[in-house]
């Protein structure tokens, strides 16, 4: 029987946040790309919380944007509330978070994909991976059609053999009742890919008309909204915003949960997958933090054209009747009507240590993967990996150098390095504490850090590139100038200091010294800085931060210099470490298994000691000299 057969450069399996970025990157780099999805309606779906960004995730979105990805642009067009988090803290942890209109977000992304050249969208379930001699050759779909390509990017999210659970109810579907992908897992296993089983969960969606907001605290957006994308005109994001609402659980809620714990599939042992500790279900919170009298609950709109609202903080897999009791015990939710139940979802994913930092499989050439399939969690983490997998599939086809971002360049670099290097027993979430050089990896300088790279790849325009070069020049020039401006203890200076409740000067000082005072900033001192040039806001912001935190920044730069030394020492591919006589046995086993790409990565593998690294360095030098 004849089956359909088509040729493409690249197949992308899945159209979630990872799949969209991967497909867009490939198509924009001129490669014929086909993207598969079980349902075209579910492109860029947000099956859990209605937010983009948040602490450290906002950084990821900025970095995606700086490299030429789509997420930032898409949320800037579809957000309904926005907040800069942590503004009272240091600039490194300022983080943007927006409430999205979910269906608009999805619709807008779909429109972008549909209007991108070289990109084909196809509704079909991919059931088989085609591999010959350790090289990927394409995919097969449920209908028997084959799509031949030189690279495949797997972005299957939470759909592989997924099942949704609450109480004793099991639905063998993907999120939100969408069709699961039940065949691909077998084909992956046949090709030697090891799978893990992870679990996550989501709270119920409720009907806005059944909520009593008078018993809750209103949570408004920022007065002046900052955009995610460096390309968005700031004027375009000053919109009328929608509010979120804050309420709390109480002892009664906790009592209801405790009484019904035995009916939760998590506690009855029905769920096999490992769940994330950072977004615990309300059952987990009540059990693990039993001393807490109440937990916060955020009621968030899912969009402008729906009455559905999301109950942030109360994900659950308790049975339907308990969910009702539990939610109705919360102030303001006494008469709440559930539209969609809360549930836990289990799915197949991989141990990402099977991947190189390029996100290509070590064992199958041309096969890449990104997103929740790689054991991560979160829309932003997924999009970041999708973008990198897409770029690297394209670089692979073009025979160009792959994109590997190290830990000192970006949160994306930290994310991928952690995934491909460290043992991970739960869905991986980005956190600012994971970035050791976070003072350098701020959301405000993502463009300065990454846009030149994005330009070299071909995803950033010449115009944007030129502005980055100019911005760098302006910042440096102004920092140099400010460091050399001396100020006397004259009346104008003292008056300004007094206005800002700052101690008056006893002797002369420099402008830079004054900027370093906690109560002052670069902009505050404009009046007494006669020679100051006219500069755009984003340049002034960089000058202020660079001067204010100069000491800390220099320290981190020094640490980065040390870090790079090991990172630049490449290790050979498919190397047999058992021939390195003096390595300890555990180190030999781990190194053989995970085949790190450089000595820096090797040093981060658990079970490889500093002494092993010394031995490795000497051995490498020995090999190098023999050549």
């Amino acid at each position, binding site marked *: 029987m004849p089956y359909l057969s088509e040729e493409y450069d690249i197949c992308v399996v899945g159209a979630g946040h990872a799949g969209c970025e991967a497909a867009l990157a490939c198509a924009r780099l001129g490669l014929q790309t086909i993207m598969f999805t079980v349902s075209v309606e579910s492109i860029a779906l947000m099956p859990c919380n209605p937010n983009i960004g948040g602490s450290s995730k906002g950084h990821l979105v900025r970095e995606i944007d700086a490299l030429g990805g789509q997420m930032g642009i898409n949320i800037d067009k579809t957000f309904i509330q926005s907040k800069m988090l942590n503004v009272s*803290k*240091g600039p490194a942890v300022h983080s943007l978070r927006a409430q999205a209109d979910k269906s608009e977000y999805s619709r807008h992304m779909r429109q972008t994909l549909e209007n991108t050249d070289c990109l084909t969208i196809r509704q079909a379930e991919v059931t088989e991976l085609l591999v010959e001699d350790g090289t990927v050759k394409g995919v097969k779909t449920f209908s028997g059609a084959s799509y031949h390509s030189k690279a495949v990017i797997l972005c299957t999210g939470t759909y592989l053999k997924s099942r949704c659970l609450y109480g004793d109810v099991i639905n063998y579907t993907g999120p939100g009742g969408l069709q699961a992908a039940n065949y691909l897992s077998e084909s992956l296993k046949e090709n030697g890919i090891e799978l893990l089983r992870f679990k996550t969960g989501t709270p119920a969606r409720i009907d806005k008309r059944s909520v009593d907001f008078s018993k809750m605290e209103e949570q408004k957006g920022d007065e002046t909204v900052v955009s995610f994308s460096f390309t968005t005109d700031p004027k375009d994001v000053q919109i009328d915003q929608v509010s979120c609402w804050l309420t709390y659980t109480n002892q009664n809620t906790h009592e209801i949960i405790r009484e019904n714990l035995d009916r939760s599939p998590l506690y009855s042992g029905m769920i096999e997958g490992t769940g994330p500790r950072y*977004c615990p279900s309300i059952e987990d919170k009540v059990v693990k933090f039993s001393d807490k009298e109440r937990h916060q609950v955020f009621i968030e709109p899912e969009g402008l054209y729906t009455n559905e609202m999301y109950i*942030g903080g109360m994900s659950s897999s308790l049975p339907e009747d308990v969910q009702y009791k539990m939610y109705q015990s919360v102030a303001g939710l006494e008469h709440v009507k559930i539209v969609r139940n809360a549930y836990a979802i289990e799915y197949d994913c991989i141990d990402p240590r099977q991947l190189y930092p390029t996100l290509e499989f070590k064992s199958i050439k041309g096969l890449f993967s990104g997103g929740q399939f790689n054991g991560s969690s979160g829309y932003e983490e997924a999009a970041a990996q999708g973008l990198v997998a897409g770029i690297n599939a394209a670089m692979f086809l073009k025979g160009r150098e792959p994109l590997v971002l190290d830990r000192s360049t970006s949160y994306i670099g930290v994310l991928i390095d952690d995934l491909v290097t460290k043992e991970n027993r739960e869905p991986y979430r980005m956190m600012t504490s994971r970035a050791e050089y976070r003072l350098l990896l701020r959301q405000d300088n993502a463009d300065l850090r990454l846009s030149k790279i994005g330009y070299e790849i071909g995803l950033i325009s010449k115009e944007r590139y030129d502005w980055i070069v100019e911005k760098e020049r302006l910042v440096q020039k102004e920092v140099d100038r400010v460091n050399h401006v001396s100020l006397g203890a004259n009346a104008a200076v003292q008056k300004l200091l007094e206005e800002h409740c700052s101690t008056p000067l006893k002797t002369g000082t420099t402008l830079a010294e004054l900027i370093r005072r906690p109560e002052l900033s670069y902009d505050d001192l404009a009046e007494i800085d006669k020679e100051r040039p006219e500069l755009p806001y984003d340049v002034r912001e960089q000058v202020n931060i660079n001067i204010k935190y100069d000491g800390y920044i220099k320290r981190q730069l020094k*640490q980065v210099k040390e870090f790079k030394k090991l990172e630049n020492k490449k290790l050979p591919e498919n190397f047999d470490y058992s021939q390195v006589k003096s390595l300890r046995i555990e180190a030999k086993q781990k190194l053989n298994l995970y085949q790190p790409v450089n000595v820096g990565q090797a040093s981060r593998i658990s079970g490889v000691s500093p002494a092993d690294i010394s031995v490795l360095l*000497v051995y490498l030098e020995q090999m190098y000299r023999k050549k």
Partner: protein
Amino acid sequence: MKTNTIAAIATAMSNSGIGIVRISGEEAFQIIDKIYRSKKGDKCLSKVLSHTVHYGYICDGDKVIDEVMVLILKSPNTYTREDTVEIDCHGGSLVMRRILETVIKYGARPAEPGEFTKRAFLNGRIDLSQAESVIDVINAKNNFSLESSILQLQGSLKNKIKEIRGKIIHEIAFIESALDDPEHISMDGYHEKLMGTIVGLVSELEALIASSENGELLKEGINTVIVGKPNAGKSSLMNLLTGKERAIVTDIAGTTRDILEEQVNLDGITLNVIDTAGIRDAWDAVEKIGVDKAKEYLRKADLVLYVIDSSTDLDENDEKILKLLFEKKVIVLLNKSDLEKATTEEMVFSYFEKEGMDYPVLSVSMKEGTGVKEIEDKIKEMFFTGEIILNDEILITNVRQKSFLQAALDSLNMVKQSIEDEMPEDFYSIDLVSACEELGNITGECASEDFVNEIFSKFCMGK
């Protein structure tokens, strides 16, 4: 703060002659400029010609530590091919240690085991044929320092450091949770609370550093192990040397089952005297443990005092002991000279001779206290002729651990400073993390996963 300029004592820790402290790395000259004073006080060593020698003093601020000769060696014509400074000082272990500590205080870090050799190789100074031996040096030194730094660290001290580290991790986890989930976790009033904690931790660390100056981290000195068959008089010797009635002395063979350890000072030479259980075929399980331990200590001994009961015959147990003494520095003590002799000095000599060994033999009586002075003189003689040397790795380990404690303390003081300067909270964790890493170097714990675990287990995050 981490630096790439390393320092170590390059000579053996004997009290003879000259000691050398070596510094290598980018900041070597910068550091020596800070601590070197020429006689007239005007010489700047970073400006002098390479491969020149300079007379002067090593000072810590106004305090003169030693009179020295300093060798300036500019890259690349040095052992490591980096800028190198060699400080030739007086050979006393205390002086060398003080100089090393000063060098570290002014910006160097203690070298990792085998690091000079490693650098020499990586920078192309040593040729390929020596690569294997470079790896061996790294491994041997590392094994030792692992043993001494982690295993030998006294239990209570290790627990103390772990406890301090645990408290720091808790604070980091709190700050990080609040940064990650600002809407669930508030930092109101946290500054004062953290300040209180830091002040407490600073004084605890200061106390630890003060105690490390009295050598309480690891016992330094010549590891002197007393061996012999049961009831040969080992415990009596221990008591005579230490002047204390510490070991249990009875006439029943096999009474010393635990290892007893004491420090003895012989005119400035520190001995770590270790009394062991008598070595024989042990029937008793408890005693067997003691014997195994004794063997272990013998392996690490710098000097062995082998006590033989002259009133009994040499037997197969002596032969067992003999095998353990191979390639060791030994003084044989023929005890019980007050009793009738079954074994004479000549018999002992010839007994050793057939094994190809030649050790000094002294006749003593522990019971009457005769011969103790001779033992002491013999030890001193062996030390000053350089025949026995101090196990310098322990001293190095102490210096390293002290430098980790000091670095942790510096980091905590930076946190204090940041709080006083009203820096935002995320800046506190930069230095808290450094403090934690420095302490982790001592306890052998790695930080990054600890934070994440603490965050999830102690603080309830949202969604």
